[in-house]
């Protein structure tokens, strides 16, 4: 149900400034919920720092492959306008009505004409150090930052171009095929009206030249972690070969130095950069995987593996990959003048100095806020902290000090990819919340001509062989391939062309399709990965079904990999085209499936996350059912009275409860649990038990926000001695009975109780900051109190590090223990005696405590398993709900229409839970805002004639799209629910009868391709002989 929104003069568009992963996520979520989005990026391309990474922790996914689909979606979305190479000069106005003045810098290339062929760069005579590869190699003055850059428009670097510096050359202008070079292009100043602004300027690495003792800039084999990413990257300057910059020789020993420009008050950088520990582990592991002969050592301070799956990743590096970890902060790098190696001196655990030599030293450089974004934030009156990060609300980190302007990603404080992504989503939610009621933008799809029915026509195939500049034509004889194509059965038209994808060529293809009466199209070109959607669009414009098209990949699978074998490459191109034509003859039109969306949300869990998500969704005018297991709303946050930065989550939660209770669109169901849920994304039917009464709810999306629970240990005399309590109990004491709390003179806290243990090998993320926060609170009440914290690694990551520093400064004592030597607690009358072996001092210490606080783990909710089974959602190894992708889809489940937020997904701080809840709501709104869902036509089909109801397909399907159901005749047949089917083909493989098939990949289509592959029979013969 959607209520009518009141009319308002607010501008409903959102401007996102900065295009890293956080900014991109904000764009996609807001645009998918129906808001017009402008993305402004100061660099010539979008994608932020991730574009430069090789792989990402802890999944080892390729960064470029992760970003590819997001960038493709971004550049194709009809509601997103990308303003790359554009600066923001000014921002005026008020929430709902901002006016931005932008300067679009002249590229000297017309972005409409440029087809990205790269001829300009190839012929450009100027070579300069490539900033994308951090100067490790050279690029031309005419450049595309990297091959997959979006927009794929070349830029001429005016500072190095011969024409701009010396007035001569102009080679690129002469050779550019579409004549896109325009030396007269001027910077353009323009204005933009926007209702809300999201700052997502991101970060830049610390310049280690400021720490001269480490030799960066003087010693060629001392490099930064970002430079090492480029070295590891297959697309990087060394093609992914690990080598030291001085001589290109593969190193035998590589060292990582942590905290370079982090946790360093001398550099004015007291904070922790939050990502370097894990990034170093990842780099060391990839290094070992690539060459097991390379010894890798990471020198670190505290090991901060605070995120989901991080500790497991760390242990895998140490145990399976023999990455060496040494806890020691190094003071300098000393070059050996004769050996060419780098000497490092470190402190061993027994306090003795040890020297070791390395071939390559990687400095794990810290993160600073992007200076341009910082400048802008300052200019528009958004407060910055001492380090230049954007100040934001302590509980709602996406809100800046200025209403209508939001922040996400590392500009708000250093954070890793998932934290950035979810903050991107939450910033989108905040902006949408502000603009709720504003007239939404009309989503105008381009009208296509009516589709021609070709089912009775004989195939008439048109074939276009693309030169792709010299990418293909430089290797493959394209004309010969076109001539050959003309000779194939049912091909009535074949021609070669310079760039099949250029705007003018697209028009020509469309015209040819119509004029020649063609009904199938084959393009032999680059790759379907990037270009299939474009040609399908051309088909639609010519009045043809888009699935009557096939792309023969003669660039990435031919010319690029057979550069030196021109004849063989031409022969292979002919083979590929022949196979494509064979398939095209058998292609059948497919249609999309449309069904209405129930614009209602079901939020399971009435804690801080659930309340926040419910309000965010209801704010956009959608009905919400809020389910709470217990009799009262509020969850754990009701006991959370203060954060380290002084916010009060409990009071905040109370305020949310009263807003939820009074919201006309929110129905609260307490003492309620889920019994069963059916349906697909956009139309679920869930049966819930409310006070043991069953009730059915129709809804379009499901949000899981069930929370987690506190762990109560059976060690350290917990439950046996009155002076032993958990963190939550201690916080309640500090808040409710401060006099009693401050009467304890000697307080000891033990960290990692129930965390990072063999049975629960995860870090609970919040306990270190919790201990620091509580010791500051206690010292505030009673400055004489003696507080000792027994820890394993102190994980006050990000800006929280400053509270740790404060605690040390006011005299809180920290003792480090190791898991094998846990503290021993014994009774001493009213007090307690704690014995611990301190790893720093390498000696046993005895402490007496009037109060022992156990910082216990966050455990998944016990009822979570039952819910997961009923909703058929996965849990991770530790029992928390498992998101679709730990990096890029931290708030979605793999099953469409399901979202997760709060402690249900893993341990987290209250502001993070709020961020996630708003983010998950934004994700849910991308579905709720639609009236109908469109499912792509590429689905599995099961032939009723051949199906014998065995159920193999049902078992094979990961998406529960196939079910064996009784028929009217009394037999059993498998039925596909097309709204759930993703077209993966697993059922097709599983079906023993050949009843299951995949539309667009029918057996006859595939066999048709194989049959025309001339050497096929020969190969089968060879295979037979080899057995």
């Amino acid at each position, binding site marked *: 149900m959607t209520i009518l929104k009141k009319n308002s003069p607010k501008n409903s568009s959102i401007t996102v400034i900065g295009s890293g992963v956080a900014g991109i996520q904000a764009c996609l979520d807001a645009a998918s919920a129906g808001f017009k989005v402008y993305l402004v990026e100061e660099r010539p391309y979008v994608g932020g720092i991730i574009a430069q990474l090789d792989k990402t922790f802890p999944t080892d996914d390729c960064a470029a492959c992760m970003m590819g689909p997001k960038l493709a979606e971004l550049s194709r979305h009809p509601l997103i306008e990308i303003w790359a190479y554009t600066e923001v000069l000014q921002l005026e106005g008020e929430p709902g009505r901002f006016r931005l003045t932008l300067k679009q810098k002249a590229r000297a290339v017309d972005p409409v004409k440029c087809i990205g062929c790269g001829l300009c760069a190839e012929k450009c005579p100027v070579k300069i150090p490539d900033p994308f590869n951090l100067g490790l190699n050279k690029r031309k003055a005419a450049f595309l930052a990297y091959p997959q850059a979006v927009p794929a428009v070349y830029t001429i670097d005016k500072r190095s171009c011969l024409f701009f510096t010396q007035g001569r050359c102009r080679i690129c202008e002469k050779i550019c095929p579409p004549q896109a070079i325009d030396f007269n292009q001027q910077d353009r100043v323009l204005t933009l009206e926007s209702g809300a602004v999201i700052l997502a300027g991101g970060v830049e690495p610390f310049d280690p030249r400021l*720490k*001269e*003792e480490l*030799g960066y800039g*003087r010693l060629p084999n001392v490099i930064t972690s970002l430079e090492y990413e480029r070295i590891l990257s297959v697309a990087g300057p060394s093609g992914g070969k690990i080598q030291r910059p001085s001589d290109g020789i593969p190193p035998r020993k590589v060292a990582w130095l942590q905290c370079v420009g982090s946790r360093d008050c001398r550099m004015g950088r007291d904070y922790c950069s939050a990502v370097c520990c894990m990034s170093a582990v990842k780099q060391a592991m990839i290094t070992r995987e690539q060459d097991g002969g390379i010894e890798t050592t990471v020198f670190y301070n505290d090991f901060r593996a605070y995120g989901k799956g991080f500790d497991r990743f760390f242990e895998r590096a140490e145990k399976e990959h023999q990455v060496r970890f040494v806890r020691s902060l190094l003071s*300098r790098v*000393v*070059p*050996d*003048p*004769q050996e060419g190696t780098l000497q490092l001196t470190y402190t061993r655990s027994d306090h003795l100095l040890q020297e070791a030599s390395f071939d390559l030293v990687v400095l794990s450089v810290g993160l600073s806020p992007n200076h341009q974004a910082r400048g802008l934030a300052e200019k528009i009156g958004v407060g910055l902290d001492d380090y230049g990060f954007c100040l934001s609300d302590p509980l709602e980190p996406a809100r800046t000090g200025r209403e209508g302007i939001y922040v996400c990603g590392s500009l708000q404080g250093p954070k890793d990819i998932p934290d950035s992504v979810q903050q991107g989503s939450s910033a989108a939610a905040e902006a949408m919340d502000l603009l709720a009621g504003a007239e939404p933008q009309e989503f105008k799809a381009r009208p296509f001509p009516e589709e021609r029915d070709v089912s009775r026509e004989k195939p008439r195939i048109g074939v276009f062989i693309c030169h792709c500049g010299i990418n293909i034509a430089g290797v493959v004889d394209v004309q010969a391939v076109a001539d050959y194509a003309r000779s194939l059965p049912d091909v009535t038209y074949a021609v070669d062309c310079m760039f099949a994808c250029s705007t003018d060529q697209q028009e020509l293809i469309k015209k040819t399709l119509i004029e020649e009466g063609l009904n199938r199209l084959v393009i032999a070109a680059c790759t379907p990965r990037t270009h299939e959607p474009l040609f399908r669009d051309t088909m639609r414009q010519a009045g043809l079904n888009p699935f009557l098209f096939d792309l023969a990949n003669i660039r990435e699978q031919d010319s690029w990999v057979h550069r030196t074998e021109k004849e063989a490459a031409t022969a292979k191109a002919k083979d590929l085209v022949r196979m494509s034509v064979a398939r095209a003859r058998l292609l059948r039109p497919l249609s999309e499936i449309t069904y209405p969306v129930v614009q209602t949300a079901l939020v399971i869990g009435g804690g801080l996350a659930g309340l926040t998500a419910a309000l965010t969704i209801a704010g956009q005018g959608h009905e919400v059912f809020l389910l709470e297991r217990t009799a009262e709303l509020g969850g754990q946050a009701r006991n959370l009275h203060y954060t380290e930065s002084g916010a009060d989550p409990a009071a905040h939660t109370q305020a949310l409860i009263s807003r939820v209770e009074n919201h006309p669109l929110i129905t609260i169901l307490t003492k309620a649990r889920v019994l069963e849920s059916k349906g697909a994304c956009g139309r679920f039917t869930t049966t819930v038990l409310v006070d043991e009464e069953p009730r059915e709810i129709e809804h379009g999306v499901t949000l899981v926000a069930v929370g987690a629970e506190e762990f109560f240990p059976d060690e350290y005399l917990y439950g046996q001695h009155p002076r032993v309590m958990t963190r939550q109990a201690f916080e309640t004491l500090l808040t409710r009975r401060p006099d009693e709390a401050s009467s304890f003179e000697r307080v000891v806290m033990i960290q990692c109780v129930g965390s990072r243990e063999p049975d629960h090998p995860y870090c609970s993320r919040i306990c270190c900051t919790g201990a620091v926060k509580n010791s500051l609170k206690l010292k505030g009440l009673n400055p004489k109190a003696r507080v000792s914290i027994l820890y394993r690694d102190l994980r006050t990551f990000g800006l929280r590090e400053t509270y740790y520093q404060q605690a040390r400064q006011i005299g809180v004592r920290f003792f480090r223990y190791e898991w094998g030597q846990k503290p021993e607690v014994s009774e001493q009358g009213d007090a307690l005696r704690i014995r611990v072996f301190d790893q720093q001092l390498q000696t046993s210490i005895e402490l007496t405590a009037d109060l022992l606080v156990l910082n216990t783990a966050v455990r998944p909710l016990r009822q979570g398993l039952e819910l997961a089974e009923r909703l058929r959602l996965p849990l991770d190894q530790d029992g928390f709900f498992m998101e679709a992708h730990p990096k890029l889809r931290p708030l979605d489940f793999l099953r469409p229409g399901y979202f997760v937020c709060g402690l249900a997904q893993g341990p987290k701080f209250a502001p993070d839970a709020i961020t996630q809840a708003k983010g998950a709501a934004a994700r849910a709104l991308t579905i709720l805002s639609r009236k109908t869902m469109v499912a792509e036509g590429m689905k599995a089909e099961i032939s009723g004639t051949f199906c014998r109801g065995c159920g193999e397909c049902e078992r094979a399907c990961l998406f529960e799209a196939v079910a064996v159901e009784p028929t009217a005749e009394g037999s059993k047949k498998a039925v596909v629910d097309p709204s759930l089917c993703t077209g993966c083909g697993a059922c097709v493989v599983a079906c023993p009868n050949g009843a299951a098939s995949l539309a667009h990949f029918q057996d006859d289509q595939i066999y048709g391709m194989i049959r025309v592959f001339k050497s096929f029979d020969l190969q089968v013969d060879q295979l037979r002989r080899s057995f």
Partner: protein
Amino acid sequence: MLPDTLKYSYYPGCSLKGTARDYADSIKGVCRFLGLELEEIPDWNCCGATAAHSIDQKAAITLAGRNLIQAAGLPHKEMLVPCPLCFNRLKTAVHALKQDLENQYPIILPESVPILQDLADFMASEKLIEVLTQKTRKPLEGLKVVCYYGCMSSRPPEITGARDFENPQSLDRIVSALGGIALPWPYKTDCCGASHSISLKDLEEGLVKKILDMAGRCGAQAVVVSCQMCQANLDMYPIRTGGRPKGSPALPVLYFTELIGLALGVKGTGNWLSRHLIDPRPLLRGLGLL
């Protein structure tokens, strides 16, 4: 070019009146040659180095402070301090007397306290480098040295105001201006052990050995210093230990002022060079510089 005469206050410190008379002579000779007039501050006393500041912080600051008051009586804007230990103590006193409000010191600094200049830094200023380049008559061609700064002239940077305290450059710039080769090397500011050469001989010898080893491995023929304490420790090492760093000849340890004298042809240079424990003259003669 410099004006004909420029006048500076000058604080020599005790070493330059005793064990480092050669350094003092070379400074005076070079300054006279360059037209820099040095006026020794009247009735100066101990700067408060090691002996004082390791026992009584307040006394150390007061001793140095008295020197600053004496200096304030002279009309010159700047005071040159050749000894890095003295420089460090005097700078510390300025810092303490101006900014340390917790401790009560029995003296108050007058407004007219001159700006303190480490002599090597002063000589490496842009203007003087230009002068040295122009006046070089016999460039130090073929002389490969490492410049050893020790720790006192640059650290701690909050006190000394040094910017390149991890990799100082002043001596390197001077050597280059004179036509010599200053090799890059990693131990520019490592500790020489200073006065521990008296009390903790083993420790000090270990530190010096490490420095001299690295200098030799980097291919240096000599070490250039601006600190007489470093000079003494490095110069004495082969004699005290009865040996020399393995496989290399003992390296002469030269004051930068001696190299200026050599390149500019200042009278008396030969005399200064004759007072070293490791005689630098065979090396310099071999290169045709003497």
